[in-house]
């Protein structure tokens, strides 16, 4: 089974989502925005980005990529 460009894009998107979910580049930053450390705001923002990404994935390519219509049938 060959994967389409679209599938690889999702792989890339999830890789980015995981890589930047812990703000390691803000590690040890002392900046405080509105009373909270800036890395905490990154976390809040990133969770929103993640929610939107997952929502989009679930609405577009999820069932097709999981083979939801063929499960139990041909290729497992």
């Amino acid at each position, binding site marked *: 089974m060959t994967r389409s460009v679209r599938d690889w894009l999702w792989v890339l998107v999830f890789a980015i989502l995981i890589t930047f979910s812990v703000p390691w580049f803000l590690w040890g930053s002392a900046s405080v925005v509105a009373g909270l450390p800036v890395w905490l705001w990154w976390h809040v923002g990133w969770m929103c980005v*993640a929610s939107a990404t997952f929502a989009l994935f679930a609405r577009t390519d999820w069932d097709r990529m999981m*083979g939801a219509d063929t499960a*139990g049938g041909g290729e497992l």
Partner: protein
Amino acid sequence: MTLQPLGIVVGYLLLALGVGLLAYRVGDNDAEDFYLASRTLGTLVLLFTTFATLLSAFTFFGGPNLAYAAGPEWILVMGVMDGILFAVLWYVIGYRQWLIGRAREYVTLGEMLGDRFASPTLRALVAGVSLLWLFPYVMLQQMGAGEALRGLTSGAIPYWGGAALITVFMIAYVMLAGLRGVAWTDTLQGLFMLSVLWVAVVWVVNAAGGVGAAATVGRTVARARVAGPSRSAAPRRRERLLDEYVQHLQSVLVAQQRQDFLRVDRRTIVHLRGSATDVGSLERSGRI
């Protein structure tokens, strides 16, 4: 008095038992229903049972210690593992596993993998690995329960007593209620933990003297942390910042005490004067 928290714990256990009984009555009498609630869990219950499962004894007893010792960013490391990594695994592997399991009527992971690779050895290996790694994880919950009950009752319930109580309850509950009951109490518990967490945020901010004061504390701590954990890096700066932080905490405490003192003082004055009951009017007229 020290046994009062035990009453709350036992009350909660009884409530959970009621939910378990309800789940028992709803459920069927087969393995698929016991282990998988007949594959019928909806989004909300699934969400909260995952949430409550991930918040283990480690979250409450180990997490704060880790965050205190290694920095609050570690909370993010744990949370993000659960939030992002698990989510991706759920979407990509979990859903497919559910689809295949439903189509082929698999109940356990070992069953599915053993069947897929036609290998009873693999099936036994998966079962063995699961048992081996789940044992310490479950034992951690019992240890946490033992410590919690000992702490809550100031030692009136010994560590082994608390751990034994929860262990016996866990075994009885799971035998009775199966996954459906566990998921239902998890939902109850998840909602409870989530709301208490936000109550705690409000409470902590108030105790620190409002959002402004909490922000000052946060800023000072952040600076002190960046100054470095090693004492040799910037010892003077680090010590100065820690001093600042301690001074700030002291001023917050003093301010609170002074407020309490003033409150008592005013009440006493009002009481002594006998007639006036409205402190505000006394203040406005400049009499106190």
